[in-house]
């Protein structure tokens, strides 16, 4: 039987601290909503306090983590030559700059054009529910029928300040880096250069850089997936189940995509076995033995029960609401398929669903065979200004990793090796191609691709490292340029003009002790601290009752 110390180390890994942010925040939100609600759209500090106490507890129990990191750096420094140490100093300086800069911009309130989804519904919906003191459907909002458990779990942190903050997303960025480190450490047998490269590679990726310091949730979702893999490989069933459950139910399309993806992977695995693939590997390195493999299969089976139980709490409320209002548990997919839902909203819900389906196809250059070949280049680069038809370019790092990845995968296939995570990335990418071709939906396969390549130590040449460094510098400059107008400003000073108006309106509304609903002709009302009725806006987002 495990002693208490082992249990602590097993479940309380400091690198998984962001997961606890959700585990604390989710029940905290419901408590705030129904029991300690002041109806002014601001939560108490309780979630932050519990989370910080947990962080202190973790830090106390994991002091070895920092000590071993420092020791590894010290030993490597002694071994390193002029070029190696010079490379380390330069890269570490750029990495530190990026992290500190992103931390600074994370302290501002959401306002950027690339944060529109956060202003539109990530923050707005949980805040409106707090103000109304009810989880019932907000009649004008289509987004209120989405799966939003991650949004609700982070709301007690975002809304603990009078102006919503986005600092939790910064902690998830650190968590994402930690997960990449954990996985590379495992797959490269603790190769220190590989660990350092993966940090440079993640921070130097334009597709990650564009969301660093913003209120968006794609980094959070990518963290959850990598954290679930890390916990699973560490045989930590409860954490893996919780992380996978939050990932699985984070957006309406993710359950559908993930089930399809697992089905495709099962088909590939069966086919590979039939045609004689004998060896299984997580990445391109060590072969996973038969006994080890069946051990993991046992863990996966054991994790099913906590996953289902957690899903009932995490996804249940949202699916039930969507089911009764729109006739589908996963709005905007197939409204009315399981019943009429709210008959007064039927046409509007159908229009909204159609608008979301149309928006899904508004990205990319097309889906022909030639388009497929061309997209490997076109998705990396801007096509005019700084963006492209895939929303935004993936950047240089993706190109640097793509070649070695294809080569290593081809080598593994020739040797009849079933490489789980690289093949998963390929299957994910193919499904993405047939779905909505937005570059942000490729975070997971791209990160897995980088982790797999970096873990293969044969690729660590000087030119490779120079390429990663170049990418790091280019991404650092992009982040600086994207936020340069906000330097030196305070959180309230960066707001959009209409958000400043909402802040003023909120002040007057609360001072007058009002409780009526205010009609507005826009729906991105994260800064409203009063009940809103949006009367105008795109049909995808604003519903109209017949």
């Amino acid at each position, binding site marked *: 039987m495990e002693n208490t110390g082992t249990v602590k180390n097993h479940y309380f890994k400091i690198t998984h601290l962001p997961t606890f942010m959700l585990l604390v925040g989710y029940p905290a939100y419901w408590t705030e909503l129904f029991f300690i609600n002041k109806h002014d759209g601001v939560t108490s500090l309780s979630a932050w306090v519990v989370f910080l106490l947990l962080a202190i507890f973790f830090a106390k129990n994991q002091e070895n983590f920092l000590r071993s990191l420092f020791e590894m750096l010290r030993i490597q420094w002694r071994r390193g030559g002029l070029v190696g140490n010079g490379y380390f100093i330069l890269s570490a300086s750029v990495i530190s700059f990026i992290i500190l800069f992103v931390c600074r911009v994370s302290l501002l309130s959401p306002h950027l054009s690339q944060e529109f989804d956060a202003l539109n519904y990530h923050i707005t919906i949980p805040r409106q529910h707090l103000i109304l003191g009810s989880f019932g459907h907000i009649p004008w909002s289509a987004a209120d029928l989405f799966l939003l458990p991650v949004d609700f779990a982070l709301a007690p942190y975002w809304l603990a300040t009078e102006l919503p903050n986005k600092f939790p997303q910064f902690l998830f960025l650190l968590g994402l880096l930690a997960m990449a480190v954990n996985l590379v450490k495992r797959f490269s047998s603790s190769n220190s250069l590989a660990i350092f490269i993966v940090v440079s590679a993640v921070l130097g990726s334009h597709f990650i850089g564009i969301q660093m310091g913003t209120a968006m949730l794609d980094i959070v979702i990518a963290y959850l997936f990598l954290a679930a893999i890390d916990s699973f490989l560490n045989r930590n069933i409860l954490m893996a189940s919780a992380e996978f459950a939050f990932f699985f139910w984070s957006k309406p399309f993710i359950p559908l995509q993930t089930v399809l993806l697992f089905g495709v992977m099962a088909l590939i695995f069966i086919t590979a076995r039939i045609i004689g693939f004998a060896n299984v590997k997580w990445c391109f390195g060590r072969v996973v033995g038969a006994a080890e493999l069946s051990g993991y299969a046992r863990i996966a089976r054991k994790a099913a029960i906590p996953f289902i139980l957690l899903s009932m709490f995490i996804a249940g409320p949202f699916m039930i609401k969507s089911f009764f209002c729109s006739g589908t548990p996963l709005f905007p997919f197939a409204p009315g398929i399981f019943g009429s839902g709210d008959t007064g909203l039927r046409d509007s819900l159908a229009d909204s669903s159609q608008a979301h389906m149309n928006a899904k196809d508004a990205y990319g250059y097309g889906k022909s065979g030639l388009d497929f070949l061309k997209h490997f280049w076109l998705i990396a680069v801007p096509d005019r200004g700084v963006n492209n038809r895939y929303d935004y370019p993936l950047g240089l790092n993706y190109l640097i990793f793509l*070649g070695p990845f294809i080569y290593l995968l081809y080598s593994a296939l020739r040797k009849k090796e079933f490489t789980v995570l690289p093949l998963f990335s390929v299957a994910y990418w193919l499904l993405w191609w047939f779905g909505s071709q937005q570059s942000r939906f490729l975070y997971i396969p791209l990160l897995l691709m980088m982790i797999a390549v970096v873990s293969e130590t044969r*690729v660590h*040449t000087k*030119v490779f490292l120079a390429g990663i460094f170049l990418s790091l510098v280019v991404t650092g400059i992009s982040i600086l340029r994207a936020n340069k107008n906000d330097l030196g400003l305070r959180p309230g000073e960066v707001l959009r003009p209409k958000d400043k108006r909402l802040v003023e309106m909120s002040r007057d509304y609360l001072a007058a002790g009002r409780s009526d609903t205010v009609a507005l002709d826009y729906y991105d009302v994260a800064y409203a601290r009063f009940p809103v009725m949006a009367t105008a806006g795109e049909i995808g987002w604003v519903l109209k009752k017949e």
Partner: protein
Amino acid sequence: MFKFAKRGKFLKFRLLDVYIILVSGAYILWRILVLLKIITLK
């Protein structure tokens, strides 16, 4: 600080290095051409 990679089969012909130099060069050139509005895709 770190030991660099020994060259395996893939790297014997410096394919990886050539690949990285080519894509980095092409990427930077493309970005400059977009910046100068010489490349604009519709």
